[in-house]
Each structure stands twice: as structure tokens, then as C-alpha cells.
């Protein structure tokens, strides 16, 4: 049986003894302003610590800070090029009271504290897309491949001063820059022991585990019970190419992976869905979580799910047996 709350093996959250079970996400908070509009314009990344939830707003070039019960508290940053300012930030992570921001259009990484005070930063020779801090001296930055120069490395490991330490992760390349970019959708998720997972967004079900130096530690194939969704997308010369969408967004919590399953939209497209698949260490489908709304971004903390809906509203859910 799955248990929510205390779980088994002294873990909080979901615990598996016989797969797969089904859960429902009960909404406990929907954060909106007094005039009914959401606080967020385009939320692209979520991160949390013991007491707060940090949401990166790409459109408004800031980080909106909420209590973990979903109450808006304060803003960090604004549009600009100075210290503590952002321009189209696209990645966020938190580690030991420090927020790491992939400041995309400024081509730099910035580190601020949880009150927004600038701590450090460094330039990178590309537009940083996602960021993961494995330690103060191990910051992994993901780039979007340009698609112009053949295969490119998409993972770049830096120390705290911005010194490049390693590069890994060859991009897919077929001379079709649009299709290639859709194929090169990857997510980085924190694992234990300073390691991390690399999860494909499309055309693959292998989840890689890498160490802080970018070395591949192992690969886990996600069970066939978890279905990829196929869609034909426009390609060069009027042709169509098939993309197998694996996950829309994902999160990790205590070595479990939570994959947001893509879903058909009313107009036949494939978009964010209303189901989260819980994947165990061996790649098995441990549970599914039914959401009341389509979510575009998720973060999971025990039996709490923080999500962003398609209108950029912050939603908070608790897991319940279905």
C-alpha cells in the first residue's frame, strides 16, 4: 500500500509497497490578488526552502516570494543589468539560503540571498536556460543548443567564481533547428549525495544520474507503463516529424521523480496535463496523482504539491488517496 504523510522508511510523502496506486491532489490554496488577477505573469521555475516558496517570473524579471501556505510576502529583483537585477530569467534553484538565478538575456548567473541581497555572480558565454546548485562550488548551468554548429554540450559545471570546470551532455542535432530544440528539452533535478538527474522532455525514457563533475553514474529506464505521447510537428520542407513527448515538467523529492504527463488539448495540440506520475528509483510507476487543473510547473515537498496553472496562478495541493 501507499501511505501519505508519514510514509514508510521514516520518509514523509508517498511510500510504495505495491505499485501503482492512485492519488488525488486536493487544493488547499489558490493565490490571487484582490482584483482576481494572479500575482504571476509567466512563472517558469519554482524552488522552496523550509519556510518559503520562490517563484521565478520571467515576464516581470523578478522572483515572487510566498509563504509555503501560499501567502504572497515580497519581491526579489527587477528588470535591469545591475547586481540583483534580471532580464528574462529562466532558471532558479535554492541551496543553503542562496538563490541561484539563470539570468538568461544578461548571459550570467546571479546568486542572491532569500531577501534579495546580491551575493555574487558571473558571466557565461551563452544564454543560461536552467540552473542547479549542487554545492557552493558546483553550479550546473544548462544551455539551449543553438542548432548551428552540430552537436553542442548543454551542461556546464562552474565553481562559485564562474570558472568552467566541465561540460557534458551532447545535444541532438539533425540540421532542423526547431525540431532539434524540441528534442533537446531536458530537466535537471536534484538527487542525494550532491548528484543530479537528467530527465528527457521528449524522445526518450532514460533518466540519467550524474555526479557533481558531470560524470554519468547510471541510467534508469522508465517503465513502459508510463506512456509517452506522440505528436507530429511541422518540420522543414513542409514535412512532419514525430515527437514523443515524455514529460512537460518534473520535480524530485527524496529520490522520487514526479513527472507531469503531457496531455491532448482541445485543439489537438499536446500541452501540460492533469496527471503526475511518481517514478521510483528503479524506473517503476509507483503512483499516479490526479490534479484538478492542468499545471505547467510543479515542485513537490512531501505530500504537498506546488504548481503553476496555465493562467500563471500559484496552486497548492495536498495528496489524498483516490
Amino acid at each position, binding site marked *: 500500500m501507499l501511505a501519505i504523510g508519514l510514509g514508510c522508511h521514516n520518509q514523509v510523502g508517498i511510500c510504495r509497497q505495491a505499485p501503482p496506486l492512485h492519488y488525488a491532489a486536493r487544493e488547499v490554496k489558490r493565490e490571487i490578488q484582490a482584483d482576481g488577477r494572479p500575482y504571476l505573469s509567466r512563472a517558469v521555475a519554482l524552488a522552496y526552502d523550509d519556510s518559503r516558496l520562490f517563484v521565478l517570473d520571467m515576464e516581470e524579471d523578478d522572483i515572487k516570494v510566498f509563504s509555503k501556505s501560499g501567502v504572497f510576502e515580497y519581491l526579489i529583483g527587477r528588470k535591469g543589468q545591475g547586481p540583483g537585477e534580471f532580464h528574462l530569467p529562466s532558471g532558479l534553484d535554492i541551496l543553503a539560503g542562496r538563490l541561484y538565478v539563470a539570468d538568461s*538575456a544578461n548571459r550570467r548567473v546571479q546568486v542572491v540571498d532569500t531577501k534579495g541581497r546580491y551575493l555574487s555572480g558571473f558571466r557565461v558565454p551563452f544564454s543560461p536556460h536552467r540552473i542547479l546548485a549542487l554545492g557552493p562550488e558546483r553550479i550546473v548551468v544548462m544551455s539551449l543548443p543553438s542548432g548551428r554548429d552540430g552537436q553542442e554540450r548543454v551542461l556546464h559545471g562552474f565553481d562559485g567564481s564562474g570558472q568552467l570546470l566541465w561540460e557534458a551532455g551532447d545535444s541532438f542535432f539533425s540540421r532542423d533547428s526547431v525540431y532539434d*530544440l*524540441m528534442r533537446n528539452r531536458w530537466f535537471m533535478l536534484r538527487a542525494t549525495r550532491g548528484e543530479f538527474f537528467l530527465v528527457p522532455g521528449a524522445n526518450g525514457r532514460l533518466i540519467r544520474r550524474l555526479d557533481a563533475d558531470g560524470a554519468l553514474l547510471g541510467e534508469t529506464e522508465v517503465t513502459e507503463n508510463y506512456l509517452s505521447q506522440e505528436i507530429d510537428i*511541422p518540420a522543414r520542407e513542409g514535412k512532419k516529424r514525430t515527437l514523443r513527448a515524455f514529460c512537460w515538467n518534473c520535480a524530485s523529492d527524496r529520490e522520487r521523480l514526479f513527472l507531469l504527463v503531457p496531455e491532448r488539448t482541445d485543439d489537438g495540440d499536446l500541452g501540460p496535463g492533469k496527471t503526475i506520475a511518481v517514478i521510483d528509483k528503479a524506473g517503476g510507476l509507483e503512483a499516479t496523482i490526479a490534479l484538478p487543473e492542468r499545471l*505547467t510547473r510543479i515542485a513537490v515537498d512531501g505530500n504537498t504539491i506546488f504548481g503553476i496553472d496555465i493562467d500563471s496562478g500559484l496552486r497548492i495541493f495536498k495528496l489524498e488517496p483516490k
Partner: protein
Amino acid sequence: MKRAIAVTLAVVFFLSVFLWLPQSSSARARADICYDDWEVCRSRAFQSDEGIIKTTLWLTVCDLALGKCVLGFTKL
């Protein structure tokens, strides 16, 4: 005669260099701006959370705009 031809060629050479260099520098600066804008366009499209087909079309528009921008027809 030879001297006149040499002087003429030298003048033509220097004129062409001085006339071409600013254009080349300007073209390169414009191309850099085009690629910067292209990266922003792709980043916005990629983070848009539109459906996959819509995102693909958006990315295609980014590529088309880059081509036009580099050729100098318009700016992104």
C-alpha cells in the same frame, strides 16, 4: 605610366578598404543584435507553455525573423 597605374590601384585599394570596413563592422554588430534577439525569442517560446505544435510554430517564426534580420530587411 606604370607609376600612374600603381597610384590609381593604391587609391582604389585604400578607398575600398576604408569604405568596406565600416560597413563590415556595422553588419557584424547588426548580426550580433539579430542573434541576441533570436536567443530571446527562442527562450520565450521555449518557456511559453503553449502546446507543442504552437511552440514549434513560434520557434519557426523566431528562425524566420532571424533570417530577415541578418539579411537586413527588418529587425526582430
